[in-house]
Structure formats: structure tokens, C-alpha cells
């Protein structure tokens, strides 16, 4: 099921209605039932796998905690970790591994015909396996007690608002919430609904419209001019942001309506002045996951290598982050670029501070923001474009047509749509800026009801009139 669909809207309204009307002790059952429906809606296989994985994690956690000796603990933990990784590898990377193994074997002179192209990719698997692993690690590190209540644990793993594309929740953040008694909180519900509306705005008005134009470009780059490729490359981060942060807003908003607080995934990433800072603001639940569970252990282990140790840890971490997104060399390169730039930024950080002193702060800040954005935009070519040869084609032709016409670079979008899009993007960025500086929602709540309701109706009106409802999936659904 996807968020921007009538089925989900109906499910959500139903759940909301029942959730607060029913006796408190039955509320978790309602959420579990809704989660089962949500997950199994497109294919019962997804549900079976998710439940099985959750059972495995639940059992593993209890087993690890049961061990008295350190060595036993480590053994059980390692086995469980490997089991979870095997599940992920099997469903996600089997085709990739087989193909690459086949190529290697062929290079060595033997014959090998890869048979499996792809096992079916269960929805949400990358997200919930990572959530499982984080839970196991926290239990192993004794930061978290193994959860013994099966119902609570199932809900922790399968809660439908975060199941598809995160945020990846830590046990310490989410499990306690599950155990709390949920009371109807008017402010939370109010806030949640507004956040859902904003998410829909971002997805339907910005992301879907841009997708209409840009998906074609990246699907067949050779059919487009250099200027078009350049503009598409520079605009794609905005499409990706609108899509994924829109999804996250709906997830967080929906959870808030039901009284749950999910972790943030974005914090105004485009004001980052370095790629290092960027990854503290972009897909935060994932980047913090790899930081806590891959980077820190690795960097700590190699701390005697000095800067080389940190670099080693960074490259491995970001390659794995790239690989998490998909089974292709492109994603590995995407990750490697992030890691390399961060290593570079660390090594010149002192040099950079000097520059900052010489140049007026504002100019350097602006340059840094643009530089970071462009680096990210270019790295996204590996993320978005399927074939490596196509990525190289784009690089070769990026600066072909400096003197392009407006008609060429608006990708056939009507002027009306271009204006709507531009206004929408500017509006979102202004809103995020205002939201970070002032308590705009608090102030808004104090306005008279006529003003508030007019804004709500206007928002709904805009979403329905400008929104592109062509059912395009959220981009991160594929991971």
C-alpha cells in the first residue's frame, strides 16, 4: 500500500476512528491489525517475511540476553546478525552477487551463466532488517533489555506508518512509546494532520511534477541535450527531497495522530556547508544508523591508524550506505563519493577555517552551500541513472549547451506548471526556514478559527488543483 492512495486514506481514517473509540487495552491490536493489512496488501509474501523476520529478531534478542558468558553472548549475537544479513542479502543482493561472480568466473576462463536475475524484493526489507540489526546490537551492547512482550515487539517492528521507508527507529526511542498508555492528545493530532498535509503538498505538487519531467531524462539520457541534462542534474536533489521528506512528513504526521513520535529524517539539508554536515541533515535515521553501528566501531578499532583509520572507517561506512540503496556498482560509487568528499573535508578543515577568516563569512557560507549542493547533485547521477555508461555520457555532455533556450530546459512543462512548481519549492523552503527559527505552528494556533480554517481549505484546494495524482510511488519504496 502506498501513502498517496485512496486505500491508505481509507485504512488510516478507519484506524484513527477505531483507535480512539476502542478500549485502551485493545488499541495495540488495532495497530497490529492495520499493520498486517498495510504490509500484506500488495502481496501476502511481504507480510509473511516481515512477521518471520520480526520473530527471528525477537527470539534472537531474548537468546542473547539469556547468555551469561561474554563469549557465548558474542557467539549468539554474531549468529543472529549473520542470519539477518543473509535474509537481506538473499532478497536484495543475490542477483547482483551472482552476476558479478559469474563475470569473475568468466574472466578467469570458465563458463558461467547467471540464472537468477532478481528474487522478488519485499517492500521495506532494507528498513526493517536494519531496524532489527539495530535492536540486536543495542541488546548485545547491553544498552537495551531484550523485549519479552511479543505483541509490543511486533508492533515495534511492523508499525505501518514507518514500515515502508522508515524512519529507522531505535529501540530506545520507540519501544518505550509502545508501552505507554495512549491518550487522545488534541495538539498532537492537530500537528500530525498538518504535517500530513505538508507531506502531501511536497509529494503531489513538487515531487510528482518534477518526476514527470526528470524521470524521462534519466531513463534515456541520450535523447536529451547537454543543457537539459545539466538542468535535470541540478534539479533532481529537489525532487528527491520533496519525495522522501514528503513521505517522512506523512509518516511522522500519521504516527503523531496516533500518539507516537517518530524520529526526524531531515533537517534542512540544503543549508549544509559541507557534505559532512549534509549527512547529519539528510536521511538522518539511516546516516545515524551507519554512524553508530558501522563507523564508530570501525574507527574505534583502527584508531591507532590516525587519520587513515578514520578514512578507512568512513569509506567502508559510506560504501555500505550506498550499497544499502541497491544492488549495483552505481550505488557503491554513490556511497564512495560521499565518503571521499568527507575525508577530503576533514583533511582540509583547518585550512578551511583560515579561508573563512579571510573571506567575508557570508560569501564563504554561500559558496560552501552551493558547492555542497552541486557535489550532492552530481553524486546523485550514480543514484538515479541505471547504467554507468549513461552516467559517463551525462558527464561528457553536461556543458554542451550553455546557450540553451527556455523551451528546451523546461522539459515540455507548461508555463503554468513551471510557475506552480517554482512557487511551491520556494514556499516549502520559506516554511522550513520559518519553522526552524520561530514557533510558527504555535503562533498559528492562536489565530482565529476563520483564519485557520481558511488556510486549511486553501491547502486542500491547492493540493487538489495543482497536485499530480498520477500514482507514482515514493522513490524510497524501492529500497
Amino acid at each position, binding site marked *: 500500500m502506498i501513502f498517496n492512495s485512496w486505500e491508505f486514506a481509507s485504512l488510516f481514517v478507519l484506524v484513527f476512528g477505531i483507535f480512539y473509540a476502542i478500549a485502551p487495552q485493545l488499541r495495540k491490536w488495532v495497530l497490529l491489525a492495520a499493520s498486517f493489512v498495510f504490509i500484506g496488501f500488495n502481496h501476502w509474501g511481504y507480510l509473511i517475511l516481515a512477521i518471520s523476520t520480526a520473530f527471528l529478531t525477537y527470539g534472537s534478542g531474548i537468546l542473547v540476553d539469556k547468555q551469561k558468558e561474554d563469549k557465548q553472548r558474542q557467539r549468539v549475537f554474531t549468529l543472529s546478525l549473520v542470519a539477518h544479513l543473509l535474509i537481506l542479502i538473499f532478497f536484495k543482493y543475490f542477483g547482483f552477487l551472482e552476476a558479478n561472480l559469474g563475470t569473475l568466473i568468466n574472466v578467469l576462463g570458465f563458463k558461467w551463466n547467471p540464472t537468477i536475475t532478481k528474487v522478488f524484493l519485499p517492500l521495506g526489507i532494507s528498513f526493517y532488517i536494519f531496524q532489527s540489526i539495530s535492536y540486536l546490537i543495542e541488546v548485545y*551492547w*547491553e*544498552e537495551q533489555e531484550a523485549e519479552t512482550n511479543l505483541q509490543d515487539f511486533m508492533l515495534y517492528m511492523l508499525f505501518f506508518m514507518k514500515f515502508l521507508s522508515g524512519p529507522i527507529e531505535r529501540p530506545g526511542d520507540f519501544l518505550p512509546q509502545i508501552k505507554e498508555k495512549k491518550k487522545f492528545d488534541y495538539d498532537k493530532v492537530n500537528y500530525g494532520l498538518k504535517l500530513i498535509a505538508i507531506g502531501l503538498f511536497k509529494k503531489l505538487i513538487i515531487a510528482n511534477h518534477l518526476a514527470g519531467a526528470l524521470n524521462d531524462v534519466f531513463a534515456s539520457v541520450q535523447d536529451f541535450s547537454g543543457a537539459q541534462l545539466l538542468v535535470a542534474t541540478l534539479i533532481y536533489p529537489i525532487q528527491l527531497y520533496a519525495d522522501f521528506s514528503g513521505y517522512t512528513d506523512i509518516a511522522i504526521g500519521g504516527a503523531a495522530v496516533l500518539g507516537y513520535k517518530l524520529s526526524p529524517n531531515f533537517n534542512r539539508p540544503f543549508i549544509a556547508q559541507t557534505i*559532512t554536515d549534509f549527512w547529519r541533515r539528510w536521511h538522518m535515521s539511516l546516516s545515524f544508523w551507519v*554512524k553508530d553501528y558501522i*563507523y*564508530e*566501531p570501525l*574507527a*574505534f*578499532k583502527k*584508531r*591507532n591508524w*590516525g587519520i587513515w*583509520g*578514520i578514512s578507512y*572507517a568512513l569509506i567502508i561506512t559510506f560504501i555500505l550506505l550506498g550499497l544499502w540503496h541497491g544492488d549495483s556498482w552505481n550505488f557503491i560509487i554513490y556511497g564512495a563519493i560521499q565518503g571521499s568528499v568527507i575525508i577530503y573535508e*576533514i583533511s582540509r578543515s*583547518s585550512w578551511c577555517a583560515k579561508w573563512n577568516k579571510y573571506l567575508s563569512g557570508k560569501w564563504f557560507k554561500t559558496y560552501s552551500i552551493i558547492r555542497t549542493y552541486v557535489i550532492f547533485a552530481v553524486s546523485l547521477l550514480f543514484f538515479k541513472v541505471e547504467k554507468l555508461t549513461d552516467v559517463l555520457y551525462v558527464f561528457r555532455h553536461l556543458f554542451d549547451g550553455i546557450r540553451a533556450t527556455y523551451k528546451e530546459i523546461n522539459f515540455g512543462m507548461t508555463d503554468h506548471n513551471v510557475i506552480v512548481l517554482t512557487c511551491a519549492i520556494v514556499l516549502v523552503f520559506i516554511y522550513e526556514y520559518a519553522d526552524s527559527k520561530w514557533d510558527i505552528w504555535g503562533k498559528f494556533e492562536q489565530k482565529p478559527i476563520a483564519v485557520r480554517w481558511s488556510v486549511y481549505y486553501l491547502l486542500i484546494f491547492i493540493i487538489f488543483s495543482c497536485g499530480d495524482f498520477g500514482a507514482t510511488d515514493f522513490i524510497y519504496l524501492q529500497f
Partner: protein
Amino acid sequence: MELDQILEEVNNIFRKVLNNSTINLTEISTAEDVDEWDSLNNIRLITEVEQYFNVKFKLREIMKLKNVGELCTSVQTKIA
């Protein structure tokens, strides 16, 4: 070694590694109180502390430390 001494030496290490002479840590200081103390510099800081006091930490020990004070206490225990 006394805790105050350890705290002072730790302060020196932080000032050196983070290149900031104005750093003044107390027992309750955490990473949030110091601008440059992020996950990247964390490793450097820990390594310097280890080398200076000639002690070795385990990852789990580091994770459990809540503030500078606990770091100093841990160092003190290891020296003894």
C-alpha cells in the same frame, strides 16, 4: 591521580585536538556543549586520551560514558 588533575589534562588534550584554546570542560560537559566535538573528532580525542594516560578503552565502555566526568573516572580506575 586525582580527578581534578585528570580533568585538567583532558582539557589540555581537547584544546590541542580540537584546536580551540577556549575550551573549558567540567565534569558534566558533554559533546553537545562543545562545537567541534563530533563523531569524527571523538575518535581522535579518545585515542589521544588513551595514549596520554597509557590506558585502553573498549568500545562498549566509551559508549556508556555520559559526560567528561565519567571519562575521567574511568581513566582514574584504569590507571590505578
